[in-house]
């Protein structure tokens, strides 16, 4: 079953084409990773799908329903949640308040909020204001904030960036546990995470999709290797 379909999505900033006529579709429960050099348009693509930005042209379909004209809030309530690369929590609220705000519209039971906090190791910070927490903890909070929304499609923007090795492992293990329960799109730079997690990889460069396939195929793709030559 197709959960997401993107057709001809384009976004320009002046003359600069951040996203250039991008089309692809995602099946339910797929674990897809979008990779590409900095400035390739990955985050802009996510912003377009979640309506943080309005596309200049193109269409977006969610379970075959045209959601191009909907607002960010409506899309969130329909079942698409996303995290932010540079975390965007409610800084002056506590961890538990952040999670509560995220879950209010989704009627998630309190017990579950507790559970998710415990699973991500946030329980001991629950009454601490987010502005006083380290970046790593804030990233875990980002994850918690979307998980409590029970999304059908979860888009994570660099969930491992800035994290220590053991923190990364924690996240990857957690995400693996979501297999067959949620459709996942993960933007990442850390190839270790990507190849460990993803069953399908889309490579972007200069606003366009230049490769799309299973990890082994992508790893051997000549163009992709050229682009990444010199990168870690």
């Amino acid at each position, binding site marked *: 079953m197709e959960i997401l379909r993107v057709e001809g999505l384009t976004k320009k900033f002046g003359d600069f084409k951040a996203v250039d006529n991008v089309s692809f579709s995602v099946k339910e429960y797929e674990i897809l990773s979008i990779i590409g050099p900095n400035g390739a348009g990955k985050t802009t693509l996510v912003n377009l799908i979640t309506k943080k930005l309005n596309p200049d042209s193109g269409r977006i379909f969610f379970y075959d329903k045209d959601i191009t004209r909907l607002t*960010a*809030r409506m899309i969130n309530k329909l079942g698409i949640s996303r995290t932010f690369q540079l975390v965007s929590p409610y800084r002056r609220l506590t961890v538990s308040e952040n999670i509560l705000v995220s879950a209010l519209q989704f009627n998630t039971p309190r017990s579950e909020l507790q559970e998710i906090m415990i699973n991500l190791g946030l329980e001991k910070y629950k009454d601490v204001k987010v502005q006083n927490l380290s970046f790593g903890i804030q990233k875990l909070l980002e994850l918690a904030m979307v998980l409590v929304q029970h999304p059908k499609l979860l888009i994570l923007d660099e969930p491992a960036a800035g994290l220590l090795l053991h923190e990364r492992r924690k996240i990857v293990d957690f995400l693996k546990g979501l297999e067959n329960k949620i459709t996942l799109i993960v933007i990442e730079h850390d190839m270790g995470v990507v190849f460990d997690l993803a069953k399908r990889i889309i490579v972007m460069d200069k606003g366009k999709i230049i490769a799309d396939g299973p990890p082994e195929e992508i790893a051997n793709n000549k163009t992709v290797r050229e682009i990444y030559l010199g990168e870690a």
Partner: protein
Amino acid sequence: MKILREANIMVLLLTFFSLALVPLTYERFYIYLMSLFMIYSIFSLSYNLLFGYAELLSFGHALFFASGAYTTALFTLNIFSDPLIGLIVSAFSSIPIALVVGLLTLRHTRIYFSILTLAFGMLAYALLVKWRDVTGGSDGLVGIPKGGVLIDITSPHLYYYFIFAFYCLVTISLYMLTKSKWGLLIRALGDNEDRLPFSGHSPMFVRLFTFTISGFVASISGSLYAILMGVVTPDIAYWTFSAEPLVMTLLGGSGYYLGPILGAFIFVILTTALARFAEYWQLILGIAVIAVILGFRGGIGGVIESFYKGRTRFRRDVYGNPESGRFN
């Protein structure tokens, strides 16, 4: 009773207790002063909901105060002479005003919102001054009755407790609001509005909600003022009057629920009781405002909190101040 452990509630109850005793002094001046204090407290609390919690800086809040005052005056003078009914009618008539003004102004970004509220506030002022036939123009309206059909609060004791009843009602209800899920949403709006849609909420809805409640409560304070004074004039709609709850809130500390009440107390004492200072209250207030912005962001509330570091619970933090200690 867990709620009694809240420091805020304790202090609030203390104020209730002290205020209830005031009329027993039989000093007309104190009764008048504290009546004014309670009215300003309600006005400032309503303002801080917008300013401290939702981070919306309005320069037109006097619009609601004046609408409450004038509607009560007009109603009790022309339609039905009873202060309580007058207050209720004017409080509810503030809702459509808040919705209209809110829908028009809240769509815009912060600075423009502030300036728009200034324009709308002055629009109200101009209306009050120019519409002589209805509003009495710059002379205003006089003879607002304290004695009504349902209740008669002509004597100082009676009108004091009338105001006191509303003071208690408002301070408790607003407190419960801030502690509720609504309060959480309003704080989230003030903190990181851009994230709200991705948490499934509508920023515009939360803004409008806050604005309407704020206006509703402010108009109650205006009604009480009209009843207390017996007279209303357009200067209560002038933008400088809108600045007063702002200053009170800043002084007391916008990050604390009780901050505006503290600020209102200081303000009323400064401008009314100390005659020598009353003349140049702007100077003192100006220095205080600058001091708050430059150093004591938490206002006097912040100063008090630093004395109680570690012993308090559920205090909202203020800009730039580090975590205030452990949590119990």
